[in-house]
């Protein structure tokens, strides 16, 4: 509809530009000073070390799988919350928000009580199959998914509500099942919200360590992610920790910038 030339709508008002710039400054300045303060000469040395490469690899796998899990599991949940009326929806919606509120370490404790070796579900699982989750990469992914999914679900639910259901109705008159409608109509129309949600979940997963360390442990090469490595390094060698943070940042910004611009500029 709108092939409107942005300029004829007028310049953005100062009442929006000023607070917007303030917000940007608040978010960007600390990063800039962090970058300035980082001992860059170590950058490539650290980047080359096995511990760092291992941690980067685990972070990449864990955050990647987390995003996939969020999209596969979280999208249906967001859809149910946004589109289907069922008893207990309000409660479920609040419950889904809870992992957001939990301090990460407590989230880890919650996971331990549920899925740990002696956890309510974990012990059943162990007795039945001999499998235990903790100290494995599966545990890392579980922890990441647990803390990241709420961000995804809330964001996508918001977008689904904002884009409305009128086209869902049209699809129904054309004989589409709810599944087809979901796949071919609802999802494409809510795509910007999905992308934003996936970015949120991915970012949250990249920065996660509290729940992971508590639930999955912290061992180089199996469960140690970049943030865990950074956190433990911070105790003894803060400069190295900063360099490691920079590595995490540079890598993730590069990916984010590439992905988001690709997804968002052609809506």
């Amino acid at each position, binding site marked *: 509809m709108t092939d409107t030339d942005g300029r004829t709508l007028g310049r953005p008002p100062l009442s929006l530009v000023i607070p917007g710039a303030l917000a940007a400054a608040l978010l960007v300045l600390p990063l800039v000073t962090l970058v300035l303060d980082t001992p860059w000469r170590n950058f490539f040395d650290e980047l080359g070390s096995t511990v760092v490469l291992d941690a980067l690899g685990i972070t990449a796998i864990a955050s990647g799988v987390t995003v996939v899990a969020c999209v596969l599991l979280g999208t249906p949940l967001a859809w149910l919350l946004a589109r289907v009326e069922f008893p207990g929806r309000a409660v479920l919606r609040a419950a889904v928000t809870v992992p957001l509120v939990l301090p990460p370490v407590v989230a880890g404790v919650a996971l*331990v009580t549920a899925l*740990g*070796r*002696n956890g309510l579900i974990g012990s059943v699982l162990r007795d039945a199959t001999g499998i235990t989750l*903790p*100290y494995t990469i599966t545990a890392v992914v579980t922890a990441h998914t647990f803390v990241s999914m709420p961000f995804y679900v809330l964001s996508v639910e918001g977008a689904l509500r904002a884009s409305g259901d009128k086209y869902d109705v049209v699809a129904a008159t054309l004989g589409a099942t709810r599944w087809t409608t979901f796949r071919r109509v609802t999802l494409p129309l809510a795509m910007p919200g999905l992308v934003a949600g996936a970015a949120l979940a991915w970012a949250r997963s990249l920065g996660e360590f509290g729940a992971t*360390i*508590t639930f*999955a*442990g*912290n*061992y*180089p090469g199996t*469960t*140690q992610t970049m943030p865990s490595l950074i*956190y*433990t*390094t*911070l*105790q*003894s*060698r*803060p400069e190295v920790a900063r360099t490691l943070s920079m590595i995490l940042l540079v890598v993730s910004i590069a990916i984010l910038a590439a992905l988001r611009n690709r997804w968002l500029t052609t809506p």
Partner: protein
Amino acid sequence: GGDDEGGHATITVLAAASLTGAFTELADQFQKDHEGVTVKLAFDSSATLAQQAVDGAPADVLATADTATMDSATAALDGDSELFATNTMVLVTPTDNPAGITGFDDIVAGDVTYVVCVDTAPCGKVAAALLADNTVQTAPASLEVDVKAVLAKVTSGEADAGIVYATDAVAAGDAVQRFEIPHAADEVTSYPIAALKQSGDAALAQQFVDLVLSTAGQQVLADAGFGKP
């Protein structure tokens, strides 16, 4: 810290997390001894606290769990630090001891899921040394960020065993079984304490340090499982 309007005074003590129990008791005692004085305690990892002290955090006393971190805060110290306690490491298992551990040898030889501190933390340095001293072959399942995390893993049964400070074993009481580690006496951790330059009430700060070093203070620490410096 400093004087309030009504003649009240407050001092803030930054203390390593492992001192939580002992220092809480000492703070109570200090308040009893000094009418109108409030002691605020902030517990965290030694490194974080040292960093904050250097940053000029409003505090009067700093007590860390190793000398290295205290040294990193030299710039903020009002005079030299003094050692006030030591700690050694022990092996703990859950009370029900599901792996059937009978001594440290089971770690050295067997297929036991055990956890220790990460070697960037003070407790991890000691643990790593002990593992080396005893030529332990099997790797730990996880390197925890601090000793409390190790203890938590053991008490919750997530790990079959863990290496913690003697004081932690005391604090955990019945929740764990305790086993000595060979060569533990070679790897003793020392706790230094010092008043801070930014203290608003240097005398009061020094009095707290003195209390910790006094016989009464030493008794409280001994009850908590600390060794003598």
